[in-house]
């Protein structure tokens, strides 16, 4: 079985560049439900839910650091009603991706709209206060 160690050199170089330039979004961990302007909210996806499933934020810029801890592919899509705000697609198991958005006050929902996922309850509420 292959061990974790050996990635192609180019990837290591890219990884090095990324590490050097990383904006320090922090390690993914137990999710926090509250953030401030410019802060980071950690969210985990699994089958079939978001953790946390309820988020409250002040209006402004926020970075969602989304990590898939499940075993299926997921998406992280922010909707205001039926209008798509922004999203992360292609979140395969183990993958972490950031999504930075500037959110005005209002009620949003976070959904995974892959076939069958939303139907099984993969939805979170996002309340942005003025």
């Amino acid at each position, binding site marked *: 079985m*292959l*061990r*974790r*160690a*050996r*990635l192609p050199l180019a*990837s290591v170089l*890219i*990884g090095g*560049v*990324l*590490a050097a*330039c*990383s*904006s320090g979004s922090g*390690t*993914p961990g137990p999710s926090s439900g509250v953030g401030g302007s410019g802060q980071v909210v950690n969210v985990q996806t699994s089958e079939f839910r978001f953790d946390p499933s309820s988020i409250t934020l002040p209006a402004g810029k926020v970075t969602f650091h989304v*990590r*898939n*801890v499940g*075993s*299926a*592919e997921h998406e992280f899509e922010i909707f205001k009603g*039926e*209008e*798509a705000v*922004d*999203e992360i697609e*292609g979140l*395969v*198991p*183990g*993958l*972490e*991706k*950031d*999504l*930075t958005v500037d959110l005005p006050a209002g009620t949003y929902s976070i959904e995974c*709209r*892959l*076939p*069958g996922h939303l*139907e099984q309850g993969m939805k979170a509420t996002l309340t942005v206060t003025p």
Partner: protein
Amino acid sequence: MVPAFLLMLREGLEAALIVGILAAYLVRIGRRDALPKVWAGVVAALVLSVAVGIIVVVTIGDLPGEIQDTAEGVAGLLAVAVLTWMLFWMRRQGRALKGELEHNVDVALTTGSTAALVGLAFVAVVREGIETVLFFIAVISSAGTGLPVFGGALVGLAIAIGIGVAIFAYGVRINLRRFFTVTGTVLIFVAAGLVAFSIHEFGEAGVIPNSGVAFNFGGILSETDPLGSLLAGLFGYRAKPTPLEVVGYLAYLVPVLTVFVLDGRVPFRRQPAPA
């Protein structure tokens, strides 16, 4: 590993299919000399994808959704335009054939035509290329992914390219009449899929409203399943399309397919079809 494999298969097929058909097409119309230009376009697209991907990640972290979605929608429509042009061009060429079919026809290709075909290959590869590069960078920089995910994605990409090569190999071997028929039909479905895809992307970008669910085959075949991934990559299959996406798909498919079928089973015959 498997989800990453299927994702890359899906994404890679969209470009590999177009490039494979394009390359076979050039060979069959006796324009093998244009192939190096196509490969140059593909390589340029790959280099550009890697460059853009790295620059994006190092500077702004990720492409803003609206920009990415709008660009994908535009790229999709461009591909539809060139593919449609290819279809009708093939049809005209076929009609002009007289006598027995050669192994290949020998057709003049204007500079503009070559540019359009190379452009199609370039746009198809760039569209998927940037997404793919960003995905691999995300895989590398995620703590929870290791060799299995990276390897799975790489294998998915390799298989997608392999399918493109296989399509090319098949396309240059079968008899010319069948090549035009099969290619024409496949391209019609691919183009229809791209119309629906572009509608989806413009909807996500907020350029057009695109809400609702026309039907939901998620219980039967999701595009994240193996067969679903193949169909999604080749023909733009979606399990849960919006009504507008279905309308767009049919609005392209039905008229174009009708014109081709009415013209006879093959895209060309010796006399025009009766009016």
